[in-house]
């Protein structure tokens, strides 16, 4: 099962490699990992998407907690939460099947943020599923290049990590 794990950790050199090293060392899987500073500049927030059985997830959370620099670990998927991913995609405008790119952009609520050499750069954000659906709607040969951020997430309402 897929899990979104939020980790608050000290913003120190080497902290990221400790986390990624832990996943390799113990054979845990990482689908995506994002990290950036929080409102407290001494702390970073990391969002990891991983999958595995409940027991594997329990180990992931415990092993993360064991890292000295980790302040807090939460499995967001176990609670009410919002998740988003951002993608920048360069799409060629010459559509063979006549799918109107602008129409797609409207349907999926994305934005065209740049155009150069007849190539559109489109910004898509939403759940992973939506981004995948957008890509599926395109002619594969028109997709020049994509860059995805991986999932980030946050709990709903008053509840903090």
């Amino acid at each position, binding site marked *: 099962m897929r899990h979104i794990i939020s980790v608050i*950790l*000290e913003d120190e050199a*080497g902290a990221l*490699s400790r986390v990624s090293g832990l996943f390799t060392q113990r054979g845990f899987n990482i689908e995506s990992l994002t990290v950036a500073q929080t409102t407290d500049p001494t702390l970073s927030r990391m969002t990891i998407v991983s999958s595995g059985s409940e*027991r594997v997830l329990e180990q992931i959370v*415990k092993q993360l*907690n064991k890292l*000295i620099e*980790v*302040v807090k670990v939460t499995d967001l998927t176990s609670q009410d939460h919002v998740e988003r991913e951002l993608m920048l995609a360069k799409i060629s405008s010459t559509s063979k099947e006549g799918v109107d790119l602008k129409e797609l952009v409207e349907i999926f609520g994305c934005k065209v943020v740049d155009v150069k050499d007849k190539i559109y750069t489109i910004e898509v954000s939403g759940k992973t599923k939506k981004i995948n659906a957008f890509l599926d709607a395109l002619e594969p040969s028109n997709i020049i290049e994509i860059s995805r951020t991986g999932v980030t997430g946050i709990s709903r309402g008053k509840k903090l990590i």
Partner: protein
Amino acid sequence: MELNGAEILVDCLQKEGVDHVFGYPGGAVLHIYDAIEAQDKITHVLVRHEQGAAHGADGYARANGKPGVVLVTSGPGITNAVTGIATAHMDSIPMVVISGQVPSPLIGMDAFQEVDATGITRSCVKHNFLVRDIKDIAITVKKAFHIATTGRPGPVVIDIPKDITIAKMEKEEYPESIEIRSYKPTTKPSNRQIRKAAELIANSKKPILYAGGGCVIGNASEELREFTRMLGFPITQTLMGLGAYPMTDKQSLGMLGMHGTYEANMAMHGSDCVVAIGARFDDRITGNLAKFCPSAKFIHIDIDPSQISKNVVADIPIVGQTTQVLKALISEMKDKELADISKWWSKIDEWRKVDSLAYKKSPGVIKPQSVIEALYEVTEGKAIVTSDVGQHQMWAAQYYLFDEPRQWINSGGLGTMGFGLPAAMGAKLAMPEKDIACVTGEGSIQMMLQELSTMLQYATPVKIINLNNGYLGMVRQWQEFFYEKRYAMSYMDALPDFVKLAESYGHLGIKVDKEEDLKPALVEAFKQKDRTVFLDIITDPSENVFPMIPAGGAHCDMLLAGRDEMVSKDETDFNAV
């Protein structure tokens, strides 16, 4: 007063109460060595190889409970120490390793003797630091000792670039204590879990206590004894836990696991309630997980939450210090009525009658088991025994009945050959009044032989009991059982003359190849209070370690000495209790 980084570092070590540092100098740490030379509170032990430094500090820490301290240079200095650091990590030994690093501006430039020390050690330390500013030295040392010695202990590496040791600043007060917001180990158990555990323990009819290294490292031996005697339960101990409860006591079933006793393993298999205390259900303990303790409920006590439900799902997990958890359980259970377990004890006594550690003596050859028995007799069971890794390690664990914690020092988790000799040296420095025996084999001893030289320089007399059978015995045993006797690379030809070798290092060497000479030689060796004695004992090369649970087997599938068939008990035998 203005001090340089090296002087600040050494001052911090003094403030931490460090009395011994095991190390080896080199370019990146020359300023630190200069500062060490200028003081006399800390004795520096100059080893002959950095792995020996880490094992020496490890043996020191295991013998007296204080953190071991290592000082090595950059590059090969720290890479040589890695095996010793990993050894300490697997067995949760408190250790602080200071490694020199190339000057800050050269980091990342592939400088001479540069290696990414924090990167290389990351997966085998509890934590590591790279000091980037002279102002951080004191706080980093404070953090390192705090992390190494609290919670589940472990090694911490501090990597210090050379320029940081040269820079100067005004001396500041060394912090008295430290608070790390992201590191707060749970020490006190939850009352609710204690009540639940007490209930289960009181109602179990076939209980067993299974005590591990956490009882030794956590100094919980006293509480463990009180708890075990109060309940009157059988107790088995892991390789790392031996001595936490006296092995000569009638409630002790000895060691469990792959080479554990018949009664310990059968009792585990038949139990309805296993109380794991500071133990981690290692694969050498559980054997085949699918067949492990089929009818037991598990209470798992550990300070490290990640150990709980890792291999075996705990019915009642209790996170906390072994001392505190046991104290809480003792007070909770003081007036509790316990289920009658007399039937369980009579079943266990039947299993005991199998006498699984019995072995046949044969004329003309020295049986390795008899060497350990003789060692036990001559030292009256009071020596600190270190070991290397292999058959001799198992025999020492089985036949030397440890009655006290910290009496048995071995590399249980990583299984590091070469550990025994430097660990014995460290143990002697920690406990100079004690007799120290290093039980080893001709394979293991050759991995750290050079430390014989250090042992002469620092006058650390230990007795080396070399069980010399010419084979890498445990490898040979597996090849005999599981590789149709194809003895690939397990025979060691061209062994040195160990007696002459010991003598060339300035020690006393005695060769023993007759049974009747064994005891007199041991007596003579232990009479030599001030000398290291190397006893090269020629033992039966065909001897195997029994009992044994073959890989994939259950606790009830044991191979016993002199019995060709596996002893397997069907379930009805257990249900009858």
